[in-house]
Every structure is written in C-alpha cells, then in structure tokens.
C-alpha cells in the first residue's frame, strides 16, 4: 500500500464537507483518535465543555455555546449521532430566543441559520425569525433566506428578500448589496442563456406511458379487485360520474358578491404585516414521520411472479465448502433473539422526533403564558438546580456539578495566591 502523505485521504469519504472548511490540524487529531478507538480524550474535552456551560457566570453565555459547537463540528468529521450536533444547535437556539440582546448578534444569527439547514422546512423558520425580530438587522439572515428561495427556483422572492433587508437597514450593508448584485447577475445570465439556447424538445415523455389524472383504474382479477401497480394508461375509456341529487333549497339569486380587486385602483402597496407566531415552527413534522419497529413484526414474504407469496425451499448448495476442524467453539453461539428479552433490534424508543426542540419551546411558551394568566401561580416548582442539570447536550449528575464547584473553588485561591 502506498503511504499517503495525508492521513485524511484514507477516509476522505467519511469527512462531511463543511461550508466554512475544516482546520487540518483538528481533522488530523479527530481521525487519529477515531482510528485508535480512543474516546477518552474526546470525552474529557466534551465533559470540559459541558461543565463550562453550566458553571459559566460571565456576561456572554453564548460564547461558550459557540465554541462548543465549533469544536463538535471539527472533531466529528462524519457528523452523525455521536456528535450530538443537532441537539446542541437546537438547545442553543432555544435558550436564547427570549434574550433580546442576542437577537442581532452575528453568532446567534449564524446558529439559527445552521439550525435551519437541518430543518425539514427552512422557510418556516426564516419567517419565524423575521416575526420575532431575530437577526433582522443582520445581512446573514437575508442572504441565507434568499439563497433558499433561489434553490427552489423562486427568484422573485429571492430578490424581494434582499429588498426587505435593505429596507430594514441590515448590517453590513456592503455585503448585502454585493450579494444582491450577484443574484441579479445570475438571473440575467440565466435569462440570456435560456433565450439563446434553442428549445430542447422532450421526446421521452411521449414514449413513456403516462398516467392520466382522475381516470378510472381497472381492477385486475375476477374475485379480488386489486388495483394495478403499473398504472400507466389507466383510462377505462369512459368516466362514470357519480350522480348526486341536488339538495332542494330556496332558489334565490343570492350569490354572495365577491370583492373584485381589479376594479379597485391599486393604492400604495401595503407593508406586509407580520403575524406574531404563537410558537416557533417544529424542526420536523412529527405526523409525517415513522418510527422504527420491531424486526419480528415485519414480515416480507417473497412474491413470485404470480404475485402470491412463495415459500422457497432452500436449494441444495451447488458446492461444498471445505470445513475446518475447529478446536474452540465460537464464544457466542448463534441463537435466536427473543425481542422481549433482548432489546436489540426491537422497537426504537421514540427519540426526540416527537419532542423537537421547537416543540419544547412552544410548550414552554404556552406554559409561561398560562402561568402569567394564573396570577403567577405555577403548578410545579423544582427545588433542585434543574437548569444546571439539563443545560448542555447531555445530563449532568449532581456529583459532577459538585466536582465542578470544588474545582473552581480550589482554582480561585490558587489564582489569588499567585496574584
């Protein structure tokens, strides 16, 4: 094997590209640690960050989060579950939504933008940000938003977003103008190229069988009416309309008159009013998601060509492999898994899919609202330092908190003595 100068090249497919690039030293370190299987150093650093999150008593708690998230991104090049990146982002974003002083802080806005990239519907989140006033003075928000529009092909909206940004006076103005000009240049170029290129004719569509909408589907088979899977050209030749009896009612000519907006002269276009969102949009639509289930509940019998399930008898092997004489039996004999006893491969516990962070924020907001309505009478009050325990990405136990306090106490007299 040829020795590569770059270690990262051997696992280049496992490195997720980041928009801002990766520092090569951090990448090397991360890959070395992964190769050795040495998780202790990683865990120690993680622990240090987590405790810093809780013990921080300075002015700028956002700074700790930002550093933690940056470190996580660089240290876990594959992304994935162990990095907890999405959890961190969600927590960070959630924590400071009420905090006005961070609303137009560049770092906080960038955290939000990163969060939207992981959401299923980024448009919702952008609109929420605008309604809440998060990042409305930052150019980054408008740039990211118009990029989303551009990706979906909605160039008009992309342009309007930039205009909104200019109107609000977002900082830095030059950057906003530069990106706006770039967008306009792209649009012009696109229009010009579409004009100059001859139109390509689409032959393929005519050759492929097309499904027609709202046509009746022929059922197959005599006894069981099975809807055909291959539904091209599924028009039965005539469409039966369903007969409905008209309800007998008073037949006045009292059709409601619909306001004709074309008649009214166009006044000055009104400022679009932003509705106040009662709750931020959910990161994932929980009704559209499926949870994994037990392997033993799922049965997928093989179907032969006739569509009936077939139990294939195991064919005789075409060759006989050489069997080694094995002195030691394998350590774990193959066995059937009883899903009730062994929890491997059983139904996955509903993870944060249902409890999305934004949904939690929503609940918290509702709770706060109801609390204020009830004359400040809160239902429950936790007598332990709940915030500290749950502050970071993972839970901290009380001993860990105590250890942190101990360390800090002992660090301080050392500082005093040296000073």
């Amino acid at each position, binding site marked *: 094997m040829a020795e590569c100068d770059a270690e990262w090249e051997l696992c280049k497919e496992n490195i*997720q590209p980041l928009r801002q690039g990766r520092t090569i030293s951090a990448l090397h370190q991360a890959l070395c640690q992964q190769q050795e299987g040495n998780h202790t150093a990683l865990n120690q650093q993680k622990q240090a960050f987590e405790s810093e999150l809780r013990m921080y008593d300075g002015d700028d708690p956002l700074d700790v989060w930002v550093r933690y998230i940056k470190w996580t991104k660089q240290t876990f090049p594959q992304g994935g579950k162990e990095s907890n990146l999405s959890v961190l982002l969600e927590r960070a974003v959630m924590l400071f939504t009420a905090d006005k002083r961070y609303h137009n802080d560049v770092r906080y806005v960038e955290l939000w933008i990163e969060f939207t990239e992981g959401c299923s519907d980024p448009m919702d989140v952008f609109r929420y940000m605008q309604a809440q006033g998060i990042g409305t003075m930052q150019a980054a928000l408008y740039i990211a938003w118009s990029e989303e529009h551009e*990706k979906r092909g909605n160039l008009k909206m992309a342009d309007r977003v930039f205009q909104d940004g200019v109107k609000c006076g977002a900082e830095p103005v030059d950057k906003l103008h530069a990106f706006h000009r770039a967008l306009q240049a792209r649009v012009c170029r696109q229009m010009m190229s579409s004009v100059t290129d001859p139109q390509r004719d689409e032959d393929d569509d005519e050759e492929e069988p097309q499904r027609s909408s709202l046509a009746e589907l022929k059922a197959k088979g005599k006894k069981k009416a099975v809807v*055909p899977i291959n539904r091209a050209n599924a028009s039965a030749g005539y469409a039966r309309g369903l007969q409905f009896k008209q309800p007998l009612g008073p037949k006045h000519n009292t059709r409601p008159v619909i306001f004709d907006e074309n008649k009214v002269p166009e006044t000055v276009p009104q400022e679009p009013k932003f509705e106040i969102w009662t709750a931020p949009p959910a990161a994932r639509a929980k009704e559209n998601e499926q949870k994994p289930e037990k392997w033993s509940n799922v049965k997928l019998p093989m179907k032969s060509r006739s569509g009936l399930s077939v139990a294939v008898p195991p*064919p005789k092997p075409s060759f006989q492999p050489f069997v080694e004489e094995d002195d030691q039996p394998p350590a774990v004999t193959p066995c059937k898994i009883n899903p009730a006893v062994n929890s491997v491969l059983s139904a996955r516990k509903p993870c944060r899919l249902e409890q999305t962070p934004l949904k939690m924020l929503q609940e918290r907001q509702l709770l706060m609202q109801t609390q204020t309505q009830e004359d400040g009478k809160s239902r429950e009050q936790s007598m332990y330092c709940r915030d500290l325990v749950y502050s970071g990405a993972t839970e901290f136990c009380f001993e860990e908190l105590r250890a942190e306090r101990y360390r800090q106490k002992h660090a301080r007299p050392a500082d005093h003595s040296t000073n």
Partner: protein
Amino acid sequence: MSQFGFETDIHNVLRLDMPITNAPMARWQRKASTSSSTNTKTTLSPNKSVNRSVSLSKTPSKTPGKNGKTQNTPSKAGGDRFIPTRNNKQLDVASFLISKENEPVEDSSSTAPNQKAWSVTLNGYDIEEAKILHLGGKPLNAPEGYQNNLKVLYSQVPTPVSIKKSRYIASVPERILDAPDIKNDFYLNLMDWGRQNVLAVGLANQVYLWDAGMGSIVLLKKMEDDNEYICSVSWSKDGNFLAVGTSDCKVELWDVQCQKRLRSMDGHSARVGCLSWNDHVLSSGSRSGLIHQHDVRVADHHIFTFGGHTQEVCGLTWSPDGKYLASGGNDNMVYIWPMTTGSEYQAVHALSEHQGAVKALAWCPWQPSILASGGGTSDRHIRIWNANSGSCISAFDTCSQVSSLVFAPNYKELVSGHGFSHDKVIIWRYPSLTKVAELEGHEDRILNLAMSPDGSTVASVAADETIRLWKGFEKDAIKKPKPTNSIIQQHIR
C-alpha cells in the same frame, strides 16, 4: 494615426514572411509550445485534473472542505485562477529555453557579454536568469454572480422529478427497522439480502440475520474482542452461505442452516471491507488495496491476488455471468478483472474517470457487460460503462455522494443511495437515466442498499441507525391467460 497601424498590419499579413503579431498562434507554434510546456509540468488546460493515480499516491482533487475551482473555471482566453495569463511571447521564450538546453554549448566566451547585452535589450530582461515560464498578473476574479457548484455539498437543493411516474411508488418506507450501533463508515458494506429472503446486517461487532418471510431474528456471530468490528457481509448465490469480513483481517464462512461457522480464512493484512461471490470463488478486498480470491472448497483457499488499487478497496462485484470482477477503491479507480484460472492477473480495464472513491458498483442483470459505478463526495457522478470495451457510455451528476447502486429488473431501473448532502434513495429510469422518484426519509447519510430476491423491495441502511424498506418495484399479478382461440380446437369440436 491609427490607420497607419492598420496599414502596417495589412502589409504584414500580406507579406507572409514576418510573424503575424496579433493573430492566434500558428499550428506549428502551438504544437511546439505544448510539447515544451508539458515538459515544464504546467498543463495548458488546468480544467482536466490529472487523474491517473497509479503512480501518484495522492488523489488529485481538492479537499472536500475547500472551495476549489478546478471543475468550473470561467474560461477566458488563456487565463484562469491558477495560471493567470499566458501569452504567445512567454511560450516562445519558454520553448526556446527548453530546446536550448538540449543543444551543445557553443564556445564563444568573447562575444558572451555582447550577446547578453543584446538579449537584455531585446527581451527586456535576462532570459538566462529568468524562470522558464513566468506567471504574472493578478488572478482573475470570477464573473459577477458566479456560484460555486460545490454548494451542493453543504446544502440540499430540492429538485423536481423530471417525468410523471408511470406507476405508484410509495414515498414513505413500508417499514423501518432499528439498526443500533451501526458503524458510520463509508468504506464498509454491512448489509446484504440473500436469495432465501434473509437480510444479513453487521452491527458493530455482531452479525444479525433477519428472516424476511418469518420475521425472526438470529444473532449469528459476535466477535470476542469489542474493539474489532464487522466490515462486510455477503451471501453466496444460492443463499446458503454467508461470508463475513472483519476488521481483524479474517474472512469467515458461515452455514446459515446449521448456524455454524465453517471456516475462517486469513491472508489479508488489513480489514476486509468488501466481499463478492462467484459460484465457489469468494473475492475479498481489503484496506491494503489487494483483492484475494478464495476457493472455499479446498483447504488451501487462497488462489490468487489482484493488485492494482493503491488505497482501500471499497466496492467489489462479480458480473452475473461470472466473466468480470469490478472493483472500486478509495484511489478513485475502477478496475475490471477477468475471471482467470491461469496466471494472468492483469486488469482488463482501468477506469479513472471518477474523482471520488468508488464504492457503488452494479452490473446490469438484463444487459450483459454493462457496469454502473458511482463516485464519492468529490465526484457525485454515476457512470455507465461497457465492460467489453472499457468505454463510458454515459455519465450524469447526482449532486451528492453516491454510496450504493442496485439495478431493479422489474421495471428496468437503477436505484442509487446517497450520502452528503442529501440522504435520499433515487430511482432512475435506465437507460434514459431520467429521475423517476426520490425517496426521502433517512435523517443521515445512506450507507448501503440491498435488493430483495424477488425484486420488489429495496432496503437501505443509513447512519441514522435505521433500515428502511422501500417497496416500489412490485410487479403486477399476472393476468390469467386469455383462452386461446386456436383453429385446431374449433376444428376438433
């Protein structure tokens, strides 16, 4: 005064014995300059990145994190981001200097200072001391509004499906199975669906079998050492034997009926990331870049070795007729090896067009000698090859790391599984290669695909620790054959 310039130009052109100053280079000049400049190791067309990495150990493309512009430079006359301006004069001087080195040195020390003075005045600088090719000027700025096409690596672009589907393809997976602790490594092949409708999955250091017909789960193998892990699983053609490749460089053969390990074959010096069966011959590719062929029937199993890859072998498949073995590696190469019993261990073809690691390889079951291959993060293309001639029939961009390919014979389609940045399963119509459907649902990158033995379902395993079963390829129940109105029958009656 400009008319004089014009007149002189016209005269020069008509006279034909003076070099034309403003015209493009004559063909013989161009040829001379290309031969000289390749000697100086600067290519005239930096758009074509040097792909042959058999001699070089570095892969040529940029790191995935950087915003390189090798693939899409704005083409101005002779200038780009890496070599700003090249004009004819520089190339003339360069070719002169190069060719001068080969000529014998003339012994004229007396006139040397004179010559030097003349050359300095003529050229404006001392040629002897100057560099052969001097690149000056600022790098060109991208045209306004230029968007780097590598943006697709960081963000998902929702793409519309190109044609109306001709059948119903469910957009949600039919079932989702839990696959905890699966190793999130691109280079492993941890899932395979066998002929007897059993799905084998390697999770961390254990191999599980799921019988799709009965729904039962069997823990087949657990490695003793917790630091080792399963790297690849592969069913034999009839589904009786399962080959398991591990990180401690062994290939194990298991009999699934008796649930017994039959043998353990070693010989590799690094983890065995991919396996493929050809009747009784099992091929295994490892991180060392070597592909071993094992005949599982005899005690001395190691028949021969294919060497050619310089980095980890991540994709390995035998063609359905057993003629060719296709292998893809982290060195961006695809090799096609013949089925040999003799002593020729040379690859039939070495395909270097990909610019990312090639793990996704699939042979077409209904057309002989057609191979589909998909490239990694830096490449993102799917290419169709003719294995007999070694030519690339077609290539298209999928905007995302391709981690697995399977052919779906029921409707003649190609299914691809993707990683960074959009984690989808995409169904393409073959051979027109238009997108039929995009199956979303995975929350993290897809690592492997496997097709069910009856061709109706595709299973995809991803780094979000789930296996999703997509049922999109069911064949209709066949119609009852119409009663034949044969003349014979009528006559008999």
